[in-house]
């Protein structure tokens, strides 16, 4: 039962992340600000990560499962890094060009490929640290990235004027995503399967909240000013 729930949640996560990636890409296409590219790319990496979570769960007994886990960890952290990138540059006076962004994107893809090459080409006598050991470091990095976004959004809320209620959903969604990472971190520490499933469920809730934010803005008439 728990296994089926994990698979369903992983599939749901990847579908929602792809949908969010598409919506954020639409936003970028209209706005043409390079810093916004971090969101569609970030959510696409998160979708890839969820797909590899699914593969890891299905093929958990095979030797290749640790490779799936590596890809899952890397793509997740890179995804969060790209989302942080968008927030960090949204207030920046330094202009981010599309070429610079493409450079960063290529470097990220190269880092994933390099890790894969390292996994496959490392001689058996020179063993890499177990993916289940480094997992915790990745989770801490993810929590740090999400913490930055939450801090950023709370700071924005404090300085906001007017309709503050509109700005509350995003920090809540990121906070839920943070709890999701914390929950998976707990799973890494004590192996509690409930923590893992709860982490996945939190992730789905957070993605659904982002989708809700988009839907809330989708039906409106031209407003004056």
């Amino acid at each position, binding site marked *: 039962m728990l296994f089926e729930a994990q698979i369903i949640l992983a599939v749901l996560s990847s579908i929602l992340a792809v949908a969010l990636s598409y919506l954020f890409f639409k936003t970028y296409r209209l706005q*043409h600000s390079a810093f916004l590219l971090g969101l569609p790319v970030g959510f696409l990496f998160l979708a890839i990560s969820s797909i590899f979570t699914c593969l890891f769960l299905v093929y958990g007994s095979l030797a290749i499962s640790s490779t799936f886990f590596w890809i899952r960890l890397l793509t997740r952290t890179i995804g969060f890094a790209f989302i942080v990138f968008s927030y960090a540059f949204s207030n920046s006076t330094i202009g981010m060009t599309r070429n610079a962004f493409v450079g960063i994107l290529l470097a990220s893809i190269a880092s994933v490929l390099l890790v894969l090459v390292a996994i496959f080409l490392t001689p058996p006598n020179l063993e890499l640290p177990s993916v289940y050991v480094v997992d915790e470091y990745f989770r801490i990095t993810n929590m740090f990235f999400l913490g930055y976004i939450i801090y950023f959004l709370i700071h924005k809320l404090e300085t906001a004027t007017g309709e503050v209620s509109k700005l509350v959903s995003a920090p809540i969604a990121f906070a839920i995503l943070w709890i999701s990472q914390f929950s998976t971190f707990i799973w890494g520490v004590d192996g509690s399967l409930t923590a893992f499933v709860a982490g996945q469920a939190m992730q789905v809730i957070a993605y659904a909240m982002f989708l809700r934010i988009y839907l809330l803005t989708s039906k409106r008439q031209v407003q004056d000013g």
Partner: protein
Amino acid sequence: MARRSKVEIYQAILLAIHLEGNQFQKASPTRVAHQANLPYDRFQKILEHLIKKGLVIQKDDGFIMTKKGISCLEEIQRNNDFLKRMGLV
């Protein structure tokens, strides 16, 4: 005042044409340029572009928005609202 992006300038022009059109059935170019806070020569270049894209059409000595123009303005406003809710603007 921060430098406006291209989209923000287009939004200001489309909104001014829309409001003027609602009030006077057509928008006067000088008033729209003034409301959008743009020099007239720059405004004219953008207006030509908007006409070419079918967002605005000429009516007598003024301009009115097309359906495409209204939906474009709605899309820009929705986009801005979404970015605002996400804390990105």
